[in-house]
């Protein structure tokens, strides 16, 4: 308030003490909340893990959250190398490789192309750049169901239907809108003067991108890579629609394994298989998660 001011009288000691305990209580409440929420989200993972190490009869006895009594690795071995998926009984290992062969090239392609697009759109404006960007953003909102039939047609014509290459192509293309948007928005915060300085120094379009701009952008590269990796690794719709049975990735194989109607339901094998399917994304988050958070925060402020 202008013109008035509070007299500087020290507060009584007691108040300060009270404030301290209050603050402690508040902090405690916050942590309690966090622990509960964390437990809630970790519970399925826990069930998954403990069940995968139990023999079948122990599972039937109940005790969903209990630790295994007779610890066994058999379900894991079976899930990886012996479980029957469809008519073949070679476990998940082949499909794990399929997933890697789809995911890694598709991530590399969509991140690289997205970076180049975003860089061109933000730092080398050309007539119609805004329209192009708007179109790319709109690409993010196309529901995949709408494009399934045209895609199938396209893949058939190009002879890629059923193949791993076909899936790579589709994932790379449909990753481009989101990666382009991420990179474009991040690069807006890279000062134009740097580009100008590099141009005067004699660097061209790609030199500036790879020597000046990308080294400044590890966080957005990681964000784009994580989003793409998890998205493509976990994709089921494209995989089940376009891959034939020996080229199917993990998600499809896992579904076939879990939903097979023969014999007893081996929950422990299913759990182990599910965990194997989740390992790569978990590993990525654990190792790159720090960058991910940083990148998301940067994006949030600069938008």
């Amino acid at each position, binding site marked *: 308030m202008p013109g008035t001011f509070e007299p500087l009288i020290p507060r009584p000691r007691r108040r300060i003490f009270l404030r301290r305990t209050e603050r402690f209580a508040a902090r405690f409440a916050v942590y309690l909340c966090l622990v509960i929420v964390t437990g809630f989200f970790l519970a399925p993972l826990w069930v998954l893990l403990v069940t995968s190490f139990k023999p079948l009869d122990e599972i039937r006895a109940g005790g969903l959250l209990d630790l295994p009594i007779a610890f066994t690795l058999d379900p894991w071995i079976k899930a990886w190398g012996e479980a029957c998926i469809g008519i073949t009984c070679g476990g998940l290992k082949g499909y794990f490789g399929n997933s890697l062969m789809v995911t890694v090239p598709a991530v590399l392609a969509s991140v690289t192309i997205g970076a180049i697009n975003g860089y061109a759109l933000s730092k080398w404006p050309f007539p119609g750049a805004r329209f192009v960007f708007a179109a790319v953003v709109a690409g993010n909102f196309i529901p995949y169901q709408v494009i399934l039939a045209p895609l199938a047609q396209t893949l058939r014509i190009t002879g890629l239907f059923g193949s791993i290459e076909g899936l790579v192509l589709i994932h790379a293309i449909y990753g481009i809108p989101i990666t382009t948007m991420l990179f474009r928005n991040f690069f807006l915060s890279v*000062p134009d*003067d*740097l580009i*100008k*300085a*590099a*141009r*005067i*120094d*004699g*660097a061209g379009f790609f*030199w500036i991108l790879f*020597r*000046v701009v990308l*080294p*400044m952008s590890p966080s957005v590269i990681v964000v784009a890579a994580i989003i793409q990796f998890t998205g493509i690794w976990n994709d089921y719709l494209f995989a089940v629609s376009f891959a034939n049975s020996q080229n199917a990735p993990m998600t499809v194989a896992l579904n076939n394994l879990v939903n097979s109607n023969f014999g007893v339901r081996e929950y422990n094998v299913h759990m182990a298989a599910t965990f194997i399917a989740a390992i790569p994304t978990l590993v990525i988050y654990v190792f790159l998660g720090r960058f991910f958070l940083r990148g998301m925060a940067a994006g949030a402020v600069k938008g």
Partner: protein
Amino acid sequence: MIDIRVVDCHKSYGQVRILRDISLDIERGEFIVLLGPSGCGKSTLLHIIAGLEPLTSGSIEIGGRDVTDLEPKDRDIAMVFQSYALYPTMSVRANMEFGLRMRGRPLAEIRAVVEEKAKMLGIDHLLDRRPSQLSGGQRQRVAIGRAVVREPRVFLFDEPLSNLDAKLRGSMRTEIKKLHRRLGTTVIYVTHDQLEAMTLATRLVVMKAGVMQQVGTPDEVYHRPLNRFTADFLGSPGMNFLDAVLRLAEGRVWAEVGRTVIPLDRYAFIERPVDGRPVVLGLRPDSIRPADGAEAAFTLDLKATLIEHTGSENHVVFDLDGREVTGKFPAEFGLEVGRTLPVAFDLARLSLFDTETELRI
């Protein structure tokens, strides 16, 4: 020898005209300062010369070559930015080497040149640091170093000192001047700071709203401004402008300011003076001083109405028939508000402008 030639340069963004009809010949080794208020197009002109922005029409020649359609890297120029624009992920050494590496010079030569120039600029102990570990002045020095290693034909400076604090700005200004003297390279320097412009320039280009107002040595531009804008833009405190009427009497020319009549015998008219023509009379505060009695200067008895102390001198506002006139007085000159005293006017340094066109007459 003409080093840079700007011919009939125009620049528009859509309907907005940024630069109109800019033509400028720059001699080898000159220090040209582009000066003007923000938005006058001075930076755009520099970017056009650098090749970072295309022209709408006109052409640019550097070293006798038409470079209008050439990329910045092929123009034999180097530029220093206001924001320094150092590559943040590279060391100082890598920053300075970058341009030479892009040009594919042998590594041994690059190393040697960078070491030499770093030593010259006093940044050789910083070579392994990152730009983020440097102070503002050091960063500016590195930015200059990056430009210097290439040994270009022309240096372009885009407000290089604007991000520095006042004291550092002063010392960097001196260093840039020394550097220019040592290297003898042509410089084009953009600033809105008139002190920088006056101290650095061999020639000054004053710009306003995309149009060149005046080109000349700092002395010419300061003492013989070609229009009222230039007169007003340079100098602090600003020039005194008084509405006056020309009078021809007894074979002499006079300016009538209210009841005061000022002789214009020493004024070099561009146009023939006409009796009764309304004009604006401009006098710099430096030309208004205490009368010491000895000189045969034009003297008036004026009352001091306001005194501003700046430390080194006092700015004194006098009342001249109801108009305010500011003069620069030495600080040790004892003076109080309300006193009337004889004030000397240096009429050799006076300017006359047309009231309508505001051009010098």
